């Protein structure tokens, strides 16, 4: 679906076309442009959705009749585990990221996102990890302990590779999720069109910003948990083994600190779609823009105070349960605000009937029901009764299908002309809607009853005569009606994609920038990047389309034949830089393949192969950075149109790379904080933690590690300043000193537990000390590699006093390393003195 190559009479347009043209032939797979990667990503996520949907249908066949023998219990366990995991990790979160990579540049009138190669890397990681996780079921090796993988079931009572497939395959995908979050946050903050101040930003972008930030805080705790879990499975470090001081509940905490915000990470982008669709068909601006921003940001925060409501029956103190119950009720407030704002927009406008709107209204109806049962199960005493029954299955499907699947289908109908160039059929759309709406309710409404009657979740069968027979049969019939609706949609989607012709431009008469482009879309997106004065520019800026098409705005040409987009300031969208974005490469694909190897080989205990693959990944990533980032332009600035001249290079906090580093490090700190949380968690549950009779890492090595590390940080700072003053010799001296100090610090960090004879398999105390020291040492090692990279860049003339993006970003990384050093040493060496 690459851009049709049609001749342009205008030489400027021809140059733009050549710069942004997609590669052809087998090189097509080296594309990194958002419109192509976004399509692959969305397609893959939908394929995983269909796969998980088929698993659900097979499970419903098994449950249709009591004591049915259609599926073996073990196969059934693999299926429900994979169904949940695939739906959450391979569909619900990625589809939003995929779709945002596809449409966000259009929504913002940008040419591309700032890091197209990062998007491509994320996609390939996603695809490899996803195929690996899904494929395991065909070898009878899929995970089978539930999508939350609770120990000790998954550590002591389940054989096979399943848990490792889950831990490593999905951790790998989490990397892709975080990569996409970084890309999308920087995209929203820095690639808005000039004039699109924060009060004019489309609500979609607001939601993406909030959800990106949520991913940074929600996914890392799970990554930290995965590391502990995998260390237990492979190296026998007893983090979750109660016999050696561990605690399975820590896993539940870490999993749900991720797992609950994830529900909102899924839900908010879906509401974002609704907030784009509803104004178009109500023919008026959204009612309560500020209130929706309140709701998006407020939900983002409150959703982090809910995780324990998945653990109400684990025996936590009453007061703790009450706090989480209160927050679970409070989150209903901003959620309600969004729904009321959408309904108010519908009521205040002149509603145009359409299939996307039908799905939005269906979504609201279903979601409200799911929300109400959510308020019920948020009450601890009710949850004690309903926990682990089909009532919860009904609740979560009402929330997720109403709050996510239906809006995504609405978005599919709405954006199909933008992406494919043609509208889907209205007639088939209505069929699909009523089949899905009816099928869904027939399938899931009875589960409320079967749950309240006591039918437990995750059972592969049940006895006849317990009152579950008819309810389950009805649910199965409903599931197939729901599937029929999807079949109609799929048929229509394929049929429409293969048809000739295309719809008219701005087919729904929308007001936001994504409808400004031509249909079929051009790879450059817009002929020129407009100035925006309104929340609905297409409605309120007369002549905008003609001016954009005539190239009267920014960047109407690609004189140097390079891909460029405009970078603006985060709050007021003042133009700051003309950013050169990188073009096609296979490096990202290879980086993903080797990173994949580093994650996948350990599942089969092939540690040497994993090490080689990891080293190759580092080499490829270094090659990618060396050739593709922080390139020195041939001239300092260029005229971008409208009598504006912008710099082609910006470093420090003005560079997008600095923002990406900052955002990545926030996520990294969240993972680190989870490990520190683990340390103190063990302190609360044990009377002798850290042990009173010593056995800790002592003082000498930790203090040496701290001092050497802080000096390395100081030397790195000094090196940055010396580079800025163009004192090359002194820069190299400072950078080499930083490297030496960093190596000393990292070594001392590992010697601290090693020289004290701490055996990580003996007890959870040495294990968690080793993990904290190891994590910090690993960051010091990465920081060392970065310093060496800067030394090489300066020697090669790729970093100069003026062109110093690399060293700025490396010093930023070191700021965070310094924080980790202080906290780690304070915890492992200082806390035992206090306790």
């Amino acid at each position, binding site marked *: 679906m690459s851009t049709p190559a049609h001749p342009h009479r205008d030489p400027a347009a021809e140059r733009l076309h050549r710069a942004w043209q997609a590669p052809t032939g087998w090189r097509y797979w080296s594309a990194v442009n958002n419109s192509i990667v976004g399509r692959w990503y969305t397609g893959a996520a939908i394929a995983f959705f269909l796969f998980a949907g088929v698993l659900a249908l097979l499970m419903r066949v098994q449950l249709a009749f009591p004591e049915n023998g259609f599926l073996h219990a073990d196969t059934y366990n693999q299926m429900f585990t994979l169904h949940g995991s695939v739906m959450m990790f391979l569909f619900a979160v990625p589809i939003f990221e995929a779709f945002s990579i596809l449409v966000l540049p259009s929504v913002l009138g940008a040419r591309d996102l700032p890091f197209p190669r990062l998007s491509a890397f994320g996609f390939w990681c996603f695809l490899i990890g996803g195929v690996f996780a899904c494929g395991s079921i065909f070898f009878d090796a899929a995970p089978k302990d539930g999508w939350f993988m609770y120990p000790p079931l998954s550590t002591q009572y389940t054989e096979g590779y399943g848990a490792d497939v889950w831990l490593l395959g999905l951790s790998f995908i989490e990397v892709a999720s975080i990569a996409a979050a970084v890309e999308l946050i920087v995209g929203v903050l820095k690639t808005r069109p*000039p*004039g699109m*101040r*924060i*009060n*004019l930003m489309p609500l979609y972008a607001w939601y993406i910003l909030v959800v990106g930030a949520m991913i940074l805080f929600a996914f890392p705790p799970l990554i930290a948990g995965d590391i502990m879990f995998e260390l237990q499975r492979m190296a026998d470090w007893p983090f979750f083994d109660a016999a050696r001081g561990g605690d399975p509940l820590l896993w539940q905490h870490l999993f749900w600190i991720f797992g609950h915000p994830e529900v909102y990470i899924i839900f908010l982008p879906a509401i974002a779609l609704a907030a784009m669709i509803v104004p178009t068909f109500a023919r008026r*601006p959204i009612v309560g*823009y*500020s*209130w929706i*921003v*309140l709701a998006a*940001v*407020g939900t*983002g*925060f*409150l959703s*982090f*105070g809910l995780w324990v409501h998945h653990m109400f029956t684990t025996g*936590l*103190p*009453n*007061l*703790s*349960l*009450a*706090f*989480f*119950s*209160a*927050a679970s*009720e*409070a989150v209903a*407030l*901003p959620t309600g605000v969004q729904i009321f704002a959408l309904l108010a927009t519908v009521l205040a406008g002149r509603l145009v009937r359409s299939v996307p709107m039908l799905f939005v209204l269906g979504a609201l109806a279903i979601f409200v029901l799911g929300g109400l049962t959510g308020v019920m199960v948020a009450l601890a005493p009710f949850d004690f009764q309903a926990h682990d029954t089909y009532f919860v299955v009904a609740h979560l499907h009402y929330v997720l299908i109403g709050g996510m699947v239906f809006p995504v289908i609405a978005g599919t109908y709405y954006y199909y002309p933008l992406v494919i160039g043609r509208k889907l059929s209205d007639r088939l759309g209505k069929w699909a809607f009523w089949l899905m709406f009816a099928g869904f309710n027939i399938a899931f409404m009875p589960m409320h009853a079967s749950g309240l009657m006591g039918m437990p979740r995750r059972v592969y069968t049940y006895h006849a005569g317990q009152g579950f027979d008819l309810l389950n049969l009805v649910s199965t019939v409903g599931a197939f009606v729901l599937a029929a609706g999807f079949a109609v949609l799929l048929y229509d989607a394929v049929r429409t994609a293969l048809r000739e012709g295309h719809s008219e431009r701005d087919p729904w008469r929308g007001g936001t920038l994504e409808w400004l482009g031509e249909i079929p879309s051009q790879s450059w997106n817009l002929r020129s990047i*407009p*100035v*925006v*004065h*309104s*929340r609905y520019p297409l409605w309120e*800026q007369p*002549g*905008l389309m*003609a*001016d954009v098409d005539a190239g*009267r*705005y920014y960047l109407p040409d690609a004189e140097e034949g390079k891909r460029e987009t405009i970078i603006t*300031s*985060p*709050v*007021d*969208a*003042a133009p700051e830089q003309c950013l050169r974005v990188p073009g096609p490469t296979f490096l990202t694909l290879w980086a993903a393949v080797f990173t994949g190897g580093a994650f996948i080989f350990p599942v089969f205990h092939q540690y040497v192969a994993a090490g080689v693959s990891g080293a190759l990944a580092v080499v490829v990533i270094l090659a990618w950075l060396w050739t593709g980032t922080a390139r020195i332009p041939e001239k300092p600035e260029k005229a971008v149109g*409208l009598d504006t001249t912008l710099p082609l290079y910006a470093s420090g906090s003005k560079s997008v790379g600095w923002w990406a580093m900052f955002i990545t490090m926030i996520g990294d700190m969240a993972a680190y904080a989870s490990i520190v949380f683990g340390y103190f968690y063990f302190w*609360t*549950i044990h009377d002798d933690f850290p042990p009173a009779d010593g056995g800790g890492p002592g003082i000498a090595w930790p203090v040496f590690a701290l001092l050497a590390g802080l000096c390395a940080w100081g030397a790195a700072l000094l090196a940055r300043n010396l580079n800025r003053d163009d004192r090359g010799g002194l820069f190299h001296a400072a950078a080499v000193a930083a490297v030496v100090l960093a190596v000393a610090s990292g070594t001392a960090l590992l010697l601290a537990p090693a020289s004290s004879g701490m055996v990580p398999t003996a007890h959870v105390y040495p294990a968690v000390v080793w993990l904290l020291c190891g994590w910090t040492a690993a960051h010091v090692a990465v920081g060392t590699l970065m310093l060496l990279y800067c030394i090489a860049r300066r020697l090669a003339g790729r970093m100069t006093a003026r062109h110093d993006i690399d060293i700025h970003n490396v010093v930023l990384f070191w700021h965070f390393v310094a924080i980790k050093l202080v906290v780690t040493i304070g915890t492992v060496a200082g806390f035992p003195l206090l306790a």
Partner: protein
Amino acid sequence: MNSNARQRRTPPRRHTSAEDRVLPESRASLWVLAAGPATWALHFLLAYVTAAIWCAKAAWPADTGRLHALLWSYTVVALAVIAWFGWRGLRRHRWGRETLPHDAPSAGDRHRFLGFATFLLCGLSFVAVLYSAMAIALAGGCIG
């Protein structure tokens, strides 16, 4: 080229208004939006951690008098901080003469919009802290 076409050659630039030059802010920032909810989060975390440590470590966990005193003091401080940020947001929202919906393409309306959104977020955070306070008031101690 006639005069009409010449006029079309230069589409409208970024808008600024006279009041943009006298904005009562040193630099534009989004962080203020997070102030209210971040205070809620801090209160929530502190209250949860304090209760968890108390219930696990205190010599007499059943005697929750001092625990409650501590939690109530967090709550009073959190409510005061949120109210202060909210008041600042309200002041920004009311700055100048323009009223809602704050959708003009000017730094002034952007300033007011951020103020209003901050105010709303502080309102939500205030209520959410009150919800937590209800938990302190109603769900006494460590064991039911």
